[in-house]
């Protein structure tokens, strides 16, 4: 049976983030959605429980200051949680936020995000760092 852990979707596009969250919920995950904006982090209250995985979906990473993203990922609920990055060009982002991430190259493919999340939770040890 699939392990359906808690996921937080962090997205700079409300509509796409909602769609990703909807897909993951239909697979049985408990999903919270955080909309990431330039001005305020986050725009919604952080999830009350620490997730097993953060899905980071950025449509315009160039518009987001890395320090803001770093501060988000350093928050208690997010610190140390593996991050699955769905960004077109994630090199700069990975340099900024550290190595404990895995990249999904097809940022516009929700199916790929769902498959990666499934693979993550299917692994025997969900605490293993993803590089």
């Amino acid at each position: 049976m699939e392990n359906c852990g808690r996921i937080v979707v962090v997205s700079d596009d409300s509509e796409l983030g909602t769609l990703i969250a909807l897909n993951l919920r239909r697979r049985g995950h408990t999903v919270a959605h955080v909309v990431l904006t330039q001005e305020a982090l986050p725009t919604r209250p952080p999830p009350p429980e620490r997730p097993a995985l953060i899905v980071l979906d950025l449509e315009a990473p160039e518009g987001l200051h890395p320090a803001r993203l770093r501060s988000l990922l350093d928050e208690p609920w997010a610190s140390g949680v593996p991050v699955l990055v769905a960004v077109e060009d994630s090199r700069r982002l990975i340099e900024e936020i550290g190595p404990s991430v895995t990249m999904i190259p097809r940022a516009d493919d929700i199916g790929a995000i769902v498959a990666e999340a499934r693979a993550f939770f299917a692994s025997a040890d969900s605490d293993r760092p993803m590089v």
Partner: protein
Amino acid sequence: MINSASGDDLSAGQQRILEELRDENLVLRDYVQTMGYLPLAGEIPLDSLLQQIVETAGRLLKARYAALGVFDDDAKVARFFVAGFDAESFSAGLPFPRGEGLLGYIVKERRIVRVARIREHPASVGFPAGHPTMTSFLGGPIEHNGVIYGNLYLTDRVGGTEFSAADEELLAIFARQSAMAIENAKRFDRLQVERSSLEAIFDSLRDAVFTTDLDDRIVRLNRRASEWAGGTAVGQTVKSVFDLVDGLSTPISTEGEAVTAEESTLVLRDGRRIPVEHVMSPIRDAGGRVLGTVQVLRDLRPQREVEQLKANIISLVSHELRTPLSHIKGYASTMLQPDVQWDAATQRDFIAGIDRQADRLARLISDLLEVSRLDAGGAARLDRAAVAPQSLVERGIRQASATTGDRQITATFGPDVPLVYADPSHIERVLTNLIENAAKYSNEGQPIQISVVADGDEVIFAVEDRGPGLTAEEQSHLFERFYRSPRVKHRTPGTGLGLAICQEIIHAHEGRIWAENSEGRGAVFRFSLPRFPHL
């Protein structure tokens, strides 16, 4: 044995001969002096030289009157310089030779003419009214290397005698020397003009240009180079004046090939860093020996700005194209997931999302095409007619309804608002853009107010929102193509083309468009259109 004698011991005849010899001596001294400097007279202004020539000719040849007719490019007398005449009466009354009398004869014949009595020469046509009476005449061309610069005319040899063969010979020599001097002076004038043009070009260059000697010392520099040097530079070494990182170093190779350092940085004294291309070329003498360098520090900032703008535009457009595609792909791939079934209502939501994003994509492409059309002069092909502002506003509101949703939009019209002279489809686009803009930059539920009033020959349209208003920086750039406010560019989609298109359309209608903060809260965009009939 030579006896010296005082003036008292000489007879009257001997006294006269002695005076004549003294006069001759003075004339010869004058001649030698004049001949000495005339050919080198390059630095004398041309007009002063011409006046000196005519005065010297009069003195040398003992003419009571002397005139110099200077030719224009068509070998016609364009100006006269005179000696012996009352200058004011000359300039007021005496006409230029018309080529009919003796002077014209010399112009045509291009040779020296010497006559004892002017009136007896076959070419003579007499003197015009008010002209001094003249008898003897000596005249000829000022010529060198086949080029005639003008004619010298000398009349009334002092003492009542006619001009001699020796005078004629002297005139020939003097005229030749004068021609050389005039040639030099003209050449000097041309050089001065060229030099002044080159200096103007040199100084107007945006790039810093300077020359050096072989010891790397600066010899000359243009205005920009002086500005960047920030102090005294002539005589200083290049290194001590310009702090160049990765620039070229002197001395230049003896082969003297031009060299370029494409990526250098000039650090100014105030700490500013300017990206430059450093080009160094040799200056050679006629024998090919390198004498120094001319160096150019080409300011790369404008090029970098263009490159940055291009990169920003590509990034912006690709992002704006990619985002709706991501949504469309997201909705479509979600619906196609084999392991999940979606109910009809959810499927409808997904399809509505696809529809919305497809509209966004179409709008973007339409904006890009519109900009391209406007660049190609499309605005000049407006289909203008008399239109009621009410119908334009109604159509604009209807077109923007997909963006504005349930938001309250009110429109008010001043008393007696006249028809406007406009292309309805273009103005509808302007109004739609402004209404959508107002919706985009204000919170949901906040109203949008449209008003139209007559103002003289114009009708003013205004679209007002209750958003955060405009900063000074935004107000100064709003209508530039691809401008996106830093406050909103990462959270609100857009290409920065909408307002630029509005401006081009309104300008094509001979109208004005501007934006300001409204008196309450928010921003108000206004534009004017000419009322109908349009004069």
